[in-house]
């Protein structure tokens, strides 16, 4: 397929996505996506899972456009939360929270929000262009590979998702194993034998993927948060000034290079299964910190705009990168991508290398809707930030009670039987203990979804080789994939170690009062001038201020 062909197909995709009805669905998707991105405790993966049973009546194109909107919207919304909410956030957004939150406390929240939104737009658009032109080539390669190579690719996905998401390798693999095990329950697709059904007719059909995903994401999260709910008022840092004046000339001058760098760091990291957006944002932050000079460098840790612009761009570019293996190979590398795969399966759309050929119109409509959604998100996020701030202030009891209601609604809608609600609760309790004991959820969901596909491809490969397992590594392509796997592993363990050291240093810096910071920072090895504390204490606000004063840290 030449790039001219794919250009025309993309234009046809636009023709579909620009129809008023689909524009409306895209708008709905990005609105819901931003809202769930803003709200703590709900992510895009959970939202796609929840909406799947209750959007059954939609036609496939509409549903996929909604889910794509949620996928991109969730990325935008998350940055608003980490910038404006005055609590330590999740580690995936830690870098944005670090610089963005400091900026907001210093009265520069508007600039942080603006650079995040525009950066996300720039990165999202460039990355979607890259996706449009790269994906057809990968797909053309992918249709040529056989079951042996497919098995190799899935081994890569399993091991990287299992071992690299989350902080503990063994816990990630245990989570993966649990997912694979639950996927085995029910009839074997090839021989129609019952497996692990223990004679129960309810288990004979297998445990529904959506049910398990909703239970793990929604019920597990609600129970876990309830066990350690942060009480007291929700401290949201107010944003001042009209949105048109948010990004000043100086901010723009300092932001555009980090945006581009973040994009070109994020996209490739997203395409390989190496830990997702988490790694991309960290890499971008580390490189911005290294590249900053003079006055700007001193602001790192105290609210440097580069530290928001780069990671936010990297985050969105990685999200687009994740779609490359998903759409061309049918291999999800994040929990949200895994749920998108389930959405395709629900609508009887065969995922895998054939997707670009067999459902070309749908795929290109999806890609076109990503461009549209990105533009909508930029427009929505800048002027409407006030609405998202309001959403952020929803009383937490209502938020988590609402999550539970949506979860039981989704669970009940799978088969319209109350037994599914009980299964939901049981798996939700499992998810609660997994969170409590540090087991990541995403590998379980990926294992659950990819397990059956993996098994059938594996058995097909072994049937061809008449049971000889050596055949699995004899193909040159498969052998190359395994070598790449080893390289990815070596690299990401190095990266993880650096990230952990870095986060420890960041945490130490964030906890320490400003005066101490100068003495802590040099331990990281970066050449921080020892004169920093004396020159900067006058411009940076201390972490004890809850109401921001209008101090300007720029000059």
């Amino acid at each position, binding site marked *: 397929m030449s790039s001219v062909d794919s250009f025309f197909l993309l234009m046809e995709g636009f023709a579909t996505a620009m129809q008023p009805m689909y524009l409306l669905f895209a708008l709905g998707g990005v609105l819901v996506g931003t809202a769930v991105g803003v709200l703590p405790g709900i992510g895009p993966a959970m939202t796609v899972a929840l909406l799947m049973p*209750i959007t059954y*009546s939609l036609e496939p194109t509409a549903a996929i456009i909604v889910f794509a909107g949620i996928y991109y919207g969730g990325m935008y919304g998350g940055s608003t939360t980490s910038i404006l909410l005055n*609590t330590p956030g999740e580690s995936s957004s830690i870098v944005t929270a670090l610089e963005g939150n400091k900026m907001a406390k210093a009265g520069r929240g508007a600039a942080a929000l603006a650079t995040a939104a525009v950066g996300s737009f720039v990165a999202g658009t460039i990355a979607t262009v890259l996706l449009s032109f790269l994906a057809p080539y990968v797909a053309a390669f992918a249709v040529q590979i056989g079951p042996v190579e497919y098995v190799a690719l899935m081994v890569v996905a399993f091991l990287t998702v299992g071992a690299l998401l989350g902080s503990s390798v063994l816990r990630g693999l*245990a989570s993966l194993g649990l997912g694979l*095990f639950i996927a085995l329950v029910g009839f074997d697709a090839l021989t129609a034998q019952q497996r692990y059904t223990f004679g129960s007719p309810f288990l004979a059909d297998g445990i529904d993927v959506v049910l398990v995903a909703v239970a793990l994401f929604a019920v597990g999260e609600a*129970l876990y948060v309830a066990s350690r709910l942060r009480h007291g008022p929700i401290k949201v840092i107010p944003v001042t000034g009209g949105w048109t004046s948010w990004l000043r000339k100086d901010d723009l001058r300092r932001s555009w290079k980090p945006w581009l760098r973040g994009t070109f760091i994020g996209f490739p990291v997203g395409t390989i299964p190496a830990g997702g957006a988490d790694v991309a944002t960290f890499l971008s932050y580390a490189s911005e910190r290294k590249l900053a000079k003079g006055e700007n460098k001193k602001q790192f840790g105290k609210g440097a705009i580069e530290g928001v612009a780069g990671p936010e761009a990297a985050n969105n570019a990685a999200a687009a990168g994740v779609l490359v293996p998903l759409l061309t190979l049918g291999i999800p590398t994040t929990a949200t991508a895994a749920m998108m795969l389930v959405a395709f399966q629900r609508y009887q759309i065969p995922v895998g290398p054939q997707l670009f050929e067999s459902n070309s119109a749908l795929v290109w409509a999806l890609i076109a809707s990503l461009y549209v959604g990105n533009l909508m998100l930029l427009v929505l996020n800048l002027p409407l930030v006030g609405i998202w701030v309001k959403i952020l202030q929803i009383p937490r009891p209502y938020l988590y009670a609402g999550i539970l209601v949506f979860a039981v609604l989704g669970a009940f809608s799978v088969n319209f039987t109350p037994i599914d609600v009980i299964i939901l609760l049981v798996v939700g309790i499992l998810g609660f203990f997994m969170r409590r004991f*540090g087991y990541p959820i995403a590998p379980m969901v990926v294992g659950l979804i990819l397990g059956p596909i993996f098994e059938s491809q*594996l058995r097909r490969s072994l049937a061809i080789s008449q049971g000889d397992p050596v055949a699995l590594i004899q193909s040159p392509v498969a052998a190359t994939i395994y070598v790449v796997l080893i390289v990815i592993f070596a690299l990401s363990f190095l990266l993880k170690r650096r990230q952990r050291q870095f986060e420890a240093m960041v945490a130490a810096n964030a906890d320490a009062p400003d005066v101490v910071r100068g003495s802590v920072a040099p331990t990281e090895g970066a050449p921080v001038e020892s004169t920093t504390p004396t020159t900067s204490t006058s411009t940076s606000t201390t972490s004890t201020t809850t109401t921001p004063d209008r101090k300007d840290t720029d000059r």
Partner: protein
Amino acid sequence: MSTSIQNSPGSGTTAAPGKPIGELVFALLIVSIGVVGFVAGAGIQTPTSASDIGPRAFPYAVSALLVAVGAGLVIQVLRGHRGSADEGEDVDLDAKTDWLTVGKLAGFVLLHAFMIVPLGWPLAAAILFFGAAWSLGARPWWRNLVTAIVLALVLQFVFGGLLGVSLPPGFLEGLGVFGG
């Protein structure tokens, strides 16, 4: 679980409070799921005509993974390496585990499951929301009640009425806008 009432002093760098008994039990649970996988896997019928590896091999491989990883985790926990509990904006890792609230929430979800058929979805959902919000500390009760009823009616209207999801309407039976 009554294992995590008190904090073990000096639990190191990890943030999970409580004795590691709960964590140990969870790791042992993973091992035992693997063992069950082997035992129950032996009972899977294998058609003699099958020329490939059959329906039993992959379950065995997954069970082996669970046993091996679970055993590794048991050893890790016994050596004092604990998992770090999940972080989140609304999670206070320093707070003591509030088992009562977790129990109440689970109880209301269970109650909801038994209420859907006799009472209809909207009423059962309103009870769940009201109970969950109350468990999580929302006051006053009348505001919780109003929110619960409004939310349940809106959801029934949007999903039951507009999107055609067949939720049993209960007392709204016969009203078309609620999918009755």
